[in-house]
């Protein structure tokens, strides 16, 4: 690794002033796991890194507010989230996804904020947060703003965050009763591989009819992508194999999978079809 300067501010406000909106060689650093990979490989050579680990703003919180919304602090580690009883109760699919997310040591160090702000399409939680209708709170020099999770990811390793903006928390809305959510991770090379295809689904059905459905795919696509047209077609449809198969087919046709070491575009399209179907079967099970 090439040498760099490390700053460790005590407050979020101070951290933001240390960031540089115009200099890509200055970046914030939380658990550092993803950035370290890029730095060790020489893909990122920072001049200055702003560590968030000393912030006293309490960004490690996990709580449920009076409206039943789950707040996850951006500096909560993925292990904190994995082990949280509140998360397990309120968003069990998040707990489930954390179990196979990277590995224990990475989860012990990597933070939720870093996991999202990295913009890597292979991350596991983004599609799930999309399907759960989550939103993110971002803080910058001019104050804070809310970003719908679906609007956070704008391209390959690109988010809608400014260079001097930081995520402070993620909020997962209170689910409607009887909502079921799941994340399906398909790995192509080994069991502990990055996903070749990730599919997240959340659905609610009553009397054999789908009341609401949210669907997102990742890893095969350049960014975690919600599929509103497929969701719309599912709403009001009867829970049956045909409904699910046509939704899976529509999902596969609605995205342009990227070919890489883990599969060709054509193969990934097929895998999106299969895993959207499997995810929908899971979330529409009575």
């Amino acid at each position, binding site marked *: 690794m090439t040498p760099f300067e490390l700053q460790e501010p005590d407050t979020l406000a101070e951290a933001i002033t240390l960031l540089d909106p115009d200099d890509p060689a200055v970046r914030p650093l939380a658990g550092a796991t993803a950035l*370290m990979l890029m730095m060790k490989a020489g893909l990122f050579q920072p001049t200055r890194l702003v*560590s968030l680990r000393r912030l006293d703003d309490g960004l490690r919180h996990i709580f449920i507010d009076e409206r039943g919304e789950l707040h996850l602090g951006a500096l909560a580690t993925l292990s904190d989230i994995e082990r949280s009883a509140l998360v397990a109760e309120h968003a069990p699919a998040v707990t489930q996804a954390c179990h196979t997310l990277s590995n*224990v*040591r*990475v989860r012990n*160090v990597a933070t939720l904020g870093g996991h999202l702000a990295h913009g890597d399409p292979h991350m596991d939680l983004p599609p799930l947060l999309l399907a759960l209708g989550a939103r993110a709170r971002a803080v910058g020099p001019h104050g804070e703003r809310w970003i719908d999770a679906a609007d956070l990811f704008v391209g390959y390793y690109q988010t809608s965050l400014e260079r001097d903006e930081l995520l402070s928390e993620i909020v997962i809305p209170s689910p409607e009763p009887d909502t079921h959510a799941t994340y399906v991770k398909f790995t192509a090379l080994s069991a502990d591989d990055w996903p070749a295809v990730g599919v997240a689904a959340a659905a609610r059905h009553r009397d054999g009819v789908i009341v609401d459905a949210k669907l997102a795919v990742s890893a095969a696509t350049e960014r975690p992508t919600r599929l509103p047209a497929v969701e719309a077609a599912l709403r009001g449809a009867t829970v049956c194999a045909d409904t699910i198969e046509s939704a899976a087919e529509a999902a596969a046709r609605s995205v342009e999978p990227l070919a890489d070491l883990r599969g060709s575009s054509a193969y990934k399209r097929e895998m999106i079809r299969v895993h959207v179907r499997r995810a929908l079967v899971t979330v529409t099970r009575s």
Partner: protein
Amino acid sequence: MSALRQIAFTLNGRAVTADVAPHHTLVEVLQEQFALYGARESCAQGLCGCCTAIVDGRAVSGCLYLAAFADGADVVTIEGLADRNHLDPVQEAFISCNAFQCGFCTSGFILMTRQLLEQNPDPTDDEIRHYLSGNLCRCGTYPDIINAVHAAAATLHKE
């Protein structure tokens, strides 16, 4: 170039200081300043676990962990697990189950197993496999490692 800064931390129960640059990793500092070689870099990507160390009670990949972040922390390495005359039950189990060959990955597997058994004293095969999925053994000693985890769990139950 970047200036050195002094960090102070607890290393295997002893208060220590080290002079580190921001780009130094924990595994480098353990080796170069404390002559502790049980954590060692292999894949350089946090995937193989050869560089595992315990920081404030949680396992980390020493190759992806900035040494500067150890400031004020409690760091435990394989060398701090036991002395040669009184091995930890996990170490004993790795020997009795023949759970290593070349040994390069072994410290990492042993430390991860310690962590697992602290959190889950009686893990199933599936739980063991998931917990240890971030450690690689190119010698392919995995079946024996699973046996060793069970054997260590049984010993710890008796204690």
